């Protein structure tokens, strides 16, 4: 099924070497929670070499979010750092790795500050 998160990780997998991540080393596991179903991806970065596998496994950093939130982050509609501050993304482990990984996320399209009571635009996907 072609959800935004899956498409995003497929694109990341095709990047190969990413110079912006030359200093990063480690594995981040992303968990996309959609009702009873949880999809997982592991992104391993080794000094800029990026590889992606679909499924569970060990990680230095774990990022867990509902499907709509993770899709919004993967499409660039939502910012991962503020989603963490809002409690919409849970993470544990090495935060430095996550800061570096943010460089792979698409830029947020020309956006205005969020209005209260609404999820970031597009986040309900």
């Amino acid at each position, binding site marked *: 099924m072609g959800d935004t998160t899956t498409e995003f990780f497929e694109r990341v997998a095709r990047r190969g070497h990413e*110079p*912006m991540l*030359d*200093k990063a080393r480690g594995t981040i596991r992303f968990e996309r929670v959609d009702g009873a179903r949880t999809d997982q991806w592991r992104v391993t970065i080794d000094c800029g070499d990026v590889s992606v596998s679909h499924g569970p496994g060990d990680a230095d950093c774990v990022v867990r979010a509902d499907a709509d939130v993770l899709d919004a982050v993967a499409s660039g509609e939502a*910012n991962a*750092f*503020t989603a*963490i*501050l*809002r*409690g*919409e993304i*849970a*993470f*544990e482990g090495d*935060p*430095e790795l996550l*800061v*570096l990984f943010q*460089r792979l996320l698409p*830029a*947020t399209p*020309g*956006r*205005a*500050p*969020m209005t*209260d009571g609404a999820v*970031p635009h597009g986040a309900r996907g």
Partner: protein
Amino acid sequence: MSDGVVTVLDGNTFVVSDRRGDVEASPTDPTGLFAFDTRFLSRWVLTVDGLRLTSLSVDDLQYFENRFFLVPGTGTVYVDATQSVIRRRAVTAAGFHEVLTILNHDDRPVDVTVRLDAAADFADLFEVKDALEKKGAYHAEVRDGALVLAYERRRYRRATQISTSAAAAIDDHGLTFEAHVEPHGEWSTELDVMAELGWNDVGVTRTAAAFRRDREHMEQELARWVGAAPSLECDWEPLRVAYRRSLVDLAAIRFSPPITPGRSLPAAGLPWFMTTFGRDSIVTSLQALPFTPELASTTLQVLGLWQGTRVDDFREEDPGRILHEIRYGELTAFEERPHSPYYGAADATALYVVLLDEYERWTGDRQLVRDLEQEARAALRWIDEYADLMGNGYVSYRRRNEETGLENQCWKDSWDSISYRDGRLPGFPRATCELQGYAYDAKVRGARLAREIWGDAALADELEREAADLKRRFNRDFWVADGEYFALALDPDGAQVDALSSNIGHLLWSGIVEDAKAEPVVRHLMGPRLHSGWGVRTLAVGEGRFNPIGYHVGTVWPFDNSIIAWGLRRYRFKQEAARIASGILDAAAYFDGRLPEAFGGYEREATKYPVQYPTACSPQAWSTGTPLLLLRTMLGLEPVGDHLVADPLLPDRIGVLALLDIPGRWGHIDAFARGPSAEGRRALQPELGASGLG
């Protein structure tokens, strides 16, 4: 902070209370327990048998610990001096720990009702500043013997947990104790106030034993920090006090970002700026380089981690840009403010390269320069590709976030700081002069790094050509011929914004001033329009917007003066640099060695003492760093290759000055100086000691 307010802090967590230890915050009053830009306790009021207490004294035990000595009753009413109360409070990683003790001095036992009122408004620091209304819901509950105060807005949740070692009746508004105290005995309870951040597990409840271990660790860490810095010997007491104060305050305001636990960098100041600021962290690291070079290393790494990689108008991010400010509060979380991070600074990116080069010159740490090559190159590219908004070869700024971005993206960031002589404000973009100096310095220093460490001679040549061209154009376009100084800025038409300001002193530091123009610039800096007797004013007397208590339009900023003194040294105006040092250090003596962010630009002769700017932050990182940089300029310390050379010139009131064990690429070395007032005394070595301790 105003008088009578006590501040204890640890990195990003701090408590501001009155001298009784009480907190009674109003919506706009900056008292309370703050952690990560959020107020986790806005009311914390102690009563004994329904009476407020009176403060006898407050001890600052450590920067993270205070002890309040109190007696029940207020004003002249306290006739019953048979009891005293001690509150001993220490800030911890996630809140504070308070030991409350009641002493009975009477021959009979007493039973008293002890009450602690508690409330939390969970205000974002921006709300405290701007008095905004909350959008979420509050609730309080008693859970597992602790009072939990919470605030929720959608999935954003912050909570404060208050627990006690002694039995208490707990309700939604506080804790009540029925204390029985034996004759000449005492009653005591330990209280823990923990901030729950909601996005990590910092707020776990800890045992008293764990707390004591933390405190021992903090005491050891402070002793290590002070011990690792050079030791100072001097016959002028105020300088010794200021030096010690600076080292301790610098330890206190180091900020360990949650994103890089275990590392620390200077945050900007209390209470508004206890967070990561690009510009302030860089400047403080520069000031502290001869003393605590590890700050610079951390600052460079953390700012590099957050370096911009994309174009984002809300955050004013560009590829290569160094952040201005990062925040963790509710308004940032809901993107009502752009600090996640916010990149609206036009100077931090060039200063990043300046710090990297200066750091290597002192420490010889070539590895860090190699590790950060990509970041430094991106920063240098930003100057040319993103900062030249007018296409005229000068760095300028105009905010892209019209709603919550900063209008002035230079260090003088208040709305009225950049003006013509007649007080008019220019349009945007604005190319302030010091930005050109920083860009010039970044190119010159970047060229050295490229040639000597990155092995890229072509880039070095290019940067040097660009720097020379920038210097030539700058000295032509910014020079105010009829006044013989550099304009504060160029306006959108390329015309001079011609007010006389302290910014011209930064130009000396950057080296962009042609030699022939240095002398008239120095004459202005030391003349009566700019120099107040204490230091150089931000804006000269006689300019349209001059106001001796205007934030950036007439006050004297200690940090500004330390950079100016450094600039004067660079152009060999040693006497003038010593005069700047002496004025600012004289002022420090009036503040027990702790320089405020700014003080009034009144004539020294008129007030006799420096008037603190009304809402200035204190301690504040780059004011804390100021005595350190002034020490460097008085001693004339300069790394040359693998050596440290000294060329001291001391102000009149200092007879002898020795700085021992200065760390750097030379190992450790001592510097000695003798001032004019040392005549007739047994002289110390007049110049740098050769006693390298390796």
